[in-house]
């Protein structure tokens, strides 16, 4: 601090003065940029349009785009402070290669040469599938498309999956099984048009707050929220169903039971558009209101009321997120949600849709254009026609396209543990914080011959374990497109250059292709994401996710365009899938009604571990906090994790508010969590946010995965709570 400031002559008047920005108006001079660059938010899949303010080549401000159809100028607190992520001090800046046990700076050439050599060595010794890749939902679609080709056709391994398996896989599998294809059928506009909105395991007020303005704008709706915890969203509900954990399958079966019994179903639609009704009818027979009430803990009246409200709605929307997906019955729960919509004809109409609200900004992009759990353009590995079509588009032999998908994320980890996978390339994700039961993961990563971590941030708990760190550009530093939950493709732009030697993932992929010698074959003449976009448009043409009518210019002009948007499309408007006349993507064009039986969640509480642990999020943070943990205002608003416990349980354990407790499961222990005693949580349950590496919920979560989608059952595991023996001073 300087002397003039010490004595009070200087009060930093200049720094704290104000000026006029032509776009954002009167504001702090620190936040008046030289120019505003339009882009799309890089956090969640709501897909808000925004601008980055750039001054002297630094991102100094952001503002919502008032003309963007998704967010109308609003942003959540993460979006409002997103420019700080670019300037964070934990950005990865240089390629780092482990030499003598220490990560040391290397040139890009050396880094990529080493990577290619290590990968090829392993493939020679242990087979081509001994290389595994785990990517993310946060690259641009162009990069996903490029990465898919690079991995499957260039590297020649099919053991490639994304962290999307940790969040969206159940929705994907559920859509595929019911409708024959992935692809959320609805639109955000449905939140405004529906007269009944049923949210299951979705705390949108916390996790997608910008969608709440749609709820607010809909004055005719009845909002029903199903959640074991009285979330912010539950508190907004007209009818709240405090369901026992993971009993939604029983509830949905019970609702279907009531609807069939009381003839509240759309027979005509069922006959015309679905198959499997008889089986469904039989399977829900035993889900009488009495039984469902005893399973779910909800009164029969409440179950009836919910079923009747849903059936009587002109247009009913069902939205769900992780409460449904993070489950060993995730996929089948999605199928039941789809069943409910199908038997009442609540699909493909304004306000009527079973809508999965996605997590990451471009989870949708990897689902559409990726080449991991499906072929690009929602094509199927097991379809010879689809493989042939792709081979022709790419000018390669169809034999090179695998006939089945490789290992899913948890199975890659399992395979690494068994030393079947020897090298792993992790892109844009932080499994050491986000993967369930992390001690197993740590052992698995420890078994690898070579671990590459490509990320915008270093050190992260994962990148610290790497043999090679590739520094990547992040949001705001690269170009491409994101697809949001309502299938809206929006443009993402580069506002500033990546720090030091960091490069866009797209450039890294092309450089690797060069080293592998497949660049000209797979990516002929490509230099920028626009080249990938053009090819992807051709590949998507005629598919459900048809991009062929889009261009970067059109996307910029309209603030994003929903697919399908085939070439020749004249009008940009709200679209829905499976509207009248549009067949489902199954062989017979009919949706499948899938019967499901309820199962209790795998790890029931015991005398030793008497609580059911629920995990979730807080509005201020994103995933594992590699980004938001470096945004000062977000850290200030939500500096540490907390454990929610009902007062009845707390008094039995003689615990007091703000005590520090350990959460213990059969697998591990979370140390020193601040206790929050609250009636938000039911007796017998506790809740812990999963963002904080310091108090990592995944120390205690279990290795239990959905058999179809392979998504982890993060939401329920048995724990006990103890008062911490050592209280860390800095958290008092």
């Amino acid at each position, binding site marked *: 601090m300087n002397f003039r*400031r010490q*004595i*009070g*002559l200087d*009060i*930093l*008047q200049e720094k*704290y003065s*104000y000026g*006029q920005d032509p776009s954002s*108006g*009167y*504001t*702090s*001079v*620190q936040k008046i940029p030289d120019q505003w660059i339009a882009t799309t938010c890089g956090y969640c899949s709501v897909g808000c349009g925004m601008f980055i303010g750039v001054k002297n080549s630094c991102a100094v*401000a952001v503002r919502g785009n*008032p*003309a963007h*159809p998704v967010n*109308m*100028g*609003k942003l*959540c*607190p993460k979006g*409002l*402070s997103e420019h700080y992520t670019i300037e964070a001090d934990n950005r990865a800046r240089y390629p780092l290669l482990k030499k003598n046990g220490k990560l040391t700076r290397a040139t890009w050439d050396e880094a990529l040469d080493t990577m290619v050599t290590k990968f090829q060595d392993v493939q020679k010794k242990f087979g081509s599938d001994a290389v595994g890749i785990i990517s993310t939902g946060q690259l641009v679609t162009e990069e996903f498309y490029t990465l898919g080709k690079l991995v499957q056709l260039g590297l020649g391994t099919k053991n490639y999956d994304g962290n999307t398996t940790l969040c969206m896989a159940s929705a994907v599998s559920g859509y595929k099984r019911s409708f024959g294809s992935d692809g959320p059928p609805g639109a955000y506009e449905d939140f*405004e048009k529906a007269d009944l909105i049923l949210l299951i395991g979705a705390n949108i*007020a916390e996790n997608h*707050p910008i969608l*709440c*303005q*749609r709820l*607010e704008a809909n004055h005719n709706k009845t909002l029903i929220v199903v959640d074991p915890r*009285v979330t*912010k969203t539950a*508190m907004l509900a007209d009818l*709240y169903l405090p369901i026992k954990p993971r009993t939604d399958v029983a509830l949905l079966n019970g609702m279907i039971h009531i609807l069939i019994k009381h003839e509240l179903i759309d027979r005509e639609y069922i006959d015309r558009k679905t198959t499997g009704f008889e089986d469904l009818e039989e399977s829900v027979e035993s889900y009488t209101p009495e039984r469902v009430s005893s399973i779910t803990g909800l009164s029969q009246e409440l179950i009836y009321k919910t079923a009747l409200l849903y059936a009587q709605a002109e247009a009913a929307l069902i939205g769900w997120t992780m409460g449904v997906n993070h489950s060993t019955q995730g996929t089948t729960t999605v199928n039941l949600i789809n069943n409910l919509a199908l038997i009442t004809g609540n699909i493909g109409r304004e306000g009527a849709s079973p809508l999965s609200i996605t997590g990451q900004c471009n989870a949708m992009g990897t689902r559409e254009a990726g080449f991991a759990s499906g072929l690009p353009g929602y094509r199927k590995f097991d379809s010879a026609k689809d493989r042939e079509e792709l081979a022709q588009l790419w000018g390669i032999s169809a034999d090179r396209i695998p006939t089945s998908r490789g290992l899913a994320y948890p199975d890659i980890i399992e395979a690494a543990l068994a030393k079947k996978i020897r090298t792993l390339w992790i892109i844009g994700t932080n499994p050491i914080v986000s993967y369930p039961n992390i001690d197993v993961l740590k052992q698995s990563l420890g078994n690898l011959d070579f671990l590459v971590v490509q990320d915008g941030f270093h050190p992260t708990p994962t990148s610290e374990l790497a043999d090679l760190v590739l520094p990547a550009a992040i949001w705001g530093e690269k170009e491409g497109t994101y697809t949001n939950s309502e299938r809206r493709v929006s443009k993402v732009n580069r506002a500033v250059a990546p720090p030091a030697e960091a490069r866009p993932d797209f450039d890294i992929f092309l450089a690797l292709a060069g080293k592998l010698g497949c660049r000209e074959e797979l990516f002929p003449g490509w230099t920028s994401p626009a080249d990938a976009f053009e090819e992807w448009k051709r590949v998507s043409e005629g598919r459900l996710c048809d991009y062929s009518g889009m261009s970067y210019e059109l996307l910029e*002009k309209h*603030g994003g365009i929903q697919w399908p948007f085939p070439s020749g499309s004249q009008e940009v408007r709200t679209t829905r899938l499976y509207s009248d006349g549009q067949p489902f993507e199954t062989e017979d064009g009919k949706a499948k009604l899938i019967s499901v039986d309820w199962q209790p969640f795998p790890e029931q509480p015991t005398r030793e571990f008497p609580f059911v642990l629920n995990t979730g999020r807080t509005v*201020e943070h994103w995933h594992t906090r590699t980004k938001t*943990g470096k945004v*000062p*205002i977000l*850290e*200030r*608003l939500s*500096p540490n994790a*907390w454990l929610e416990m*009902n007062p009845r349980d707390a008094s039995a354990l003689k615990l*007091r*508010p*703000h005590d520090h407790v350990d959460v213990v499961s059969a697998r591990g222990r979370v140390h020193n969590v*601040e206790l*929050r005693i*609250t*009636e*938000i949580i*039911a*007796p017998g349950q506790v809740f812990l946010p999963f963002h904080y590496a310091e108090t990592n919920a995944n120390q205690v979560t279990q290795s239990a995965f959905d058999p179809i989608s392979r998504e982890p059952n993060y939401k329920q595991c048995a724990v006990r709570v103890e008062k911490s023996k050592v209280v860390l001073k800095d958290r008092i």
Partner: protein
Amino acid sequence: MPLPLLERAKEDGITFVLTPKKSRPDRLYKISLLQVEEPAWMRPLQQGEQYRFHFDMTKCIGCKCCVVACNEQNGNPSTINWRRVGEIEGGWYPNTKRFYLSMGCNHCLEPSCLLGCPVDAYSKDPVTGIVRHSADTCIGCQYCTWNCSYGVPQFSPERGVVGKCDMCYGRLQESQAPACVNACPESAIQIEIINTEQWRREYAASANAPGLPSADHSVSTTRVTLPAEMPPDTKKADIHRVRPEHPHWPLVVMTILTQLSVGAFANVWLRQAVGSSARLGLAAVASLLVGGMALAASTLHLGRPIHAYRALKMWKRSWLSREVLVFGLFSNVAFAYAALLALKIPGSLAAGALTTLLGIAGLTCTARIYMVRPRPAWNSNHTLLEFYLSAILLGSLFVRAIGVTNGRWTLMLVLASAAAQLLNQSLKFFRLVRSRSYERQASARLLSTTLVPLVLCRGALLICGGMLLPIYATGLSGMIAALLVSIAGEILGRYLFFVSVVPKNIALSYLSTSAEAA
């Protein structure tokens, strides 16, 4: 939200008015949601009207967009939040309700920040009613942060001045909605126009809410729309988090030393009045030095010590100004008194009387600074008594240690003041415990839990330095020891005075917001 642009139609001195401009910025394409209507506040303000915030608790989802937007708007660091979001909670599972309170400045009709400010840094804008703060004028004394029941003004150590929400005055002038209003996805924060006289009659019903301090103190203008049904046990979420306040070390030292100095001068004068003359000059000069040190210490508390003299300005209104004024006079007269005594010039007795009177007046001003409604544990005569008794105890011990006297009368003064202080502190604690005010109870909780070792230590030092040593250690060294032990005791006592106050505030969030980003 792009708002219709306004322009200033008329500008004659302070009574400019705002009227809407005709055109709106073109929109790129039709938006289905949130029809942009012209907000009702976009009309010229009339005589007797002002702007205010309306907060709709039924709409707020606690996303804290307003907090982030406010910090961005004003370029503030994360540790300073001119808008804050608190939580209140009640009910039983599954009928649990949590509501949020988003609060900036309430732009009160009787702003207590303004009334206490010694330098006139605050003004109530005659047209908009916005309570504005001038960083230029501010000297960083932070008195306003004690005077506001809502915890609105916040001191910036980086700048050395206080800052607060000005309802985005600059934006309103340009007919732009404030940053928080703009950022709220739920339209829970709005600007409204009110007639101040009407509001004065109606505020009690609309400006109060669970989790908010009473609006009576300053007549807050923020209107809060409450949910139709609220669980009866709804209370602040942060009610269990009570932490010691800032100790303000320069003020601890300053108050103890001024009290010592005043007490010493009073003793010197009393000795002189009864005809003693041993070492009176020396004692007066020493007391003067102590007073000088106190003055120096006081400027260290200021964010802008160089402008300390400005604090004289508002003596008609502010107890802080009065304190500065009276102690300023005191030090001059005391200087004269010490000089007259030392040089044995006649007239010193009268000067001594004046010095003593001014000293007592000064102590009273100091005490009145702390006796403010937003700091309930301070706001009682115990504060006044504590300061007087410290002065008597330390002043008497001081003159004894210098060798002015070792007589029975001063010893009696020492013993009586120590005993009275012990009683005063015990009584204060007892009344805090018995109080029905949350803040007073919380102060008692602090004193009897976190701070209890220090409380016991303070009591021991008081008994030792104010009773045992003066009685049993009779030599000069004993007297010096008694003085030093008592100074330590009073300093610890004053430290506890500062840290154990629990100020009134709005409900805050359950998690501490004090952590800084890594």
